[in-house]
């Protein structure tokens, strides 16, 4: 799966949790979930569960802690899918 395809799927996943629509419109690799999209930090665990379902991977606690931006999340998804 290409990076672009992953970002496209990730965008669909985070959409319901987004509280800053402006930030969502400009979503890019550099987007930070909490600062740019104003996602409630409690919802980050829900996003991770949705990512696991969508990509059929399992994300451990160490990886989870890093998943605060699109870039970091894409990297972790790629790593787990290639594992």
């Amino acid at each position, binding site marked *: 799966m290409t990076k672009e395809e992953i970002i496209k799927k990730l965008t669909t996943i985070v959409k*319901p*949790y987004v509280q800053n629509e402006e930030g969502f419109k400009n979503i890019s690799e550099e987007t930070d979930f909490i600062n740019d999209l104003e996602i409630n930090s*409690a*919802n980050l*665990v*829900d996003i991770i*569960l949705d990512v696991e379902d969508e990509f059929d991977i399992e994300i451990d606690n160490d990886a989870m802690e890093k998943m605060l931006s699109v870039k970091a999340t894409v990297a972790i998804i790629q790593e787990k899918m290639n594992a």
Partner: protein
Amino acid sequence: MKNRVVITGLGVVAPNGVGLTEFTKAIKSGTSGITFHQELKDKGFSCCIGGIPTISEEKKNEYLTPLQLRGFNSTSILYGVISGIDAWKDAGFSVDENSDLDYNSGLIFGTGTSGIEKFREAIYKIDDQNVRRLGSTSVIQTMASGISAYLGGILGFGNQVTTNSSACTTGTEALLMGFERIKNGNAKRMLVGSSSDSSLYTWGGFDAMRVMTYKHNQTPEKGSRPMSATASGFVPGSGGGALVLESLESALERNATIYAEVLGGNINSGGQRNGGTLTAPNATAVQKCITDAILDANISADEIDAINGHLTATSKDSLEVENWTKALQRTGTNFPLINSLKSMVGHCLSGAGAIESVASVLQIKEQFVFPNINCEDVHPEILALIAADKIPQKTIEKNINILAKASFGFGDVNACVIFKKYSEF
């Protein structure tokens, strides 16, 4: 100086009507909300009938955001949110997620157990060694105060925001606790109410105790029979009710519609002494609760025009009526009119006190007494205490000035509130 407290908004989610208009119509016409439920039969319940409010997906979306509805599985929170928002709007306020924090408004919204279906989901996942799959929604939907937490955020309240729990007394207790808070000047407005889940897992324990009727699975609408000679146990119900209590001063300033005044009330416990147990009431304490409520309201027992009883359709109904006659010192034709909403909606458990308080206040506002359905054969023990025409079988249009409402619950706990038609003096 103590503040006078009035009711300025109502909201209700009941098995026989969701929303004030539908509910008022239902109670005036004696419409039952009790139906047969195949899932109860499939699980081997003795009682396969119950009262469940009808809420469409569309309706859910009017009250909760798509994000709030993700993984949402708590009817007690749903009923609490709908009735609470409705009551707040009915009082003339708007609901706006960007509203200023309001330190003068608070809420006390009770429940027995919250989100029991959500809790079941969590238990299955944990037992399956999948605790991490619970996500973020498990805690907020299963904590008892989930309901007050949802409502507090939706409405932006800055005063006390809490949840109480006292079995089937819960809603009436919430109302009286909110009343005290405004009376003592700690808040201007308190949204009070209670709700109960529609769930097999809430009702199962009662079925096991054999306190629910198993005789009306073919005739659900006839099943809930408070004060009837053929009463054979309660019918489980569910739903929520909410009332906006407000200081008279604040209500007048806003030129708000006043439904009724809360004159006073009492909350006590029988301490599981003198005949009281975990599940049965201490009759002396019940009577004291009523007489203390009358004292607190500063009225005489003779001024009470109508009673909305607890009256569940178990063998305890006669004892309850006897307690009222002793507390009021009124019997026979001198007894007030008495009714039980449970004949139409079943026993809504922790939601009962609030739903029934809404029904009580509507009777004062619209000056009527709703009928006791399924009571064409009044229990002889009750007829020995009060005249038959004090138990209306049809809606009566009548000037109701003062109404007493009581709720009693497991744990031997009691609450009685006195409502009065609002007048300036």
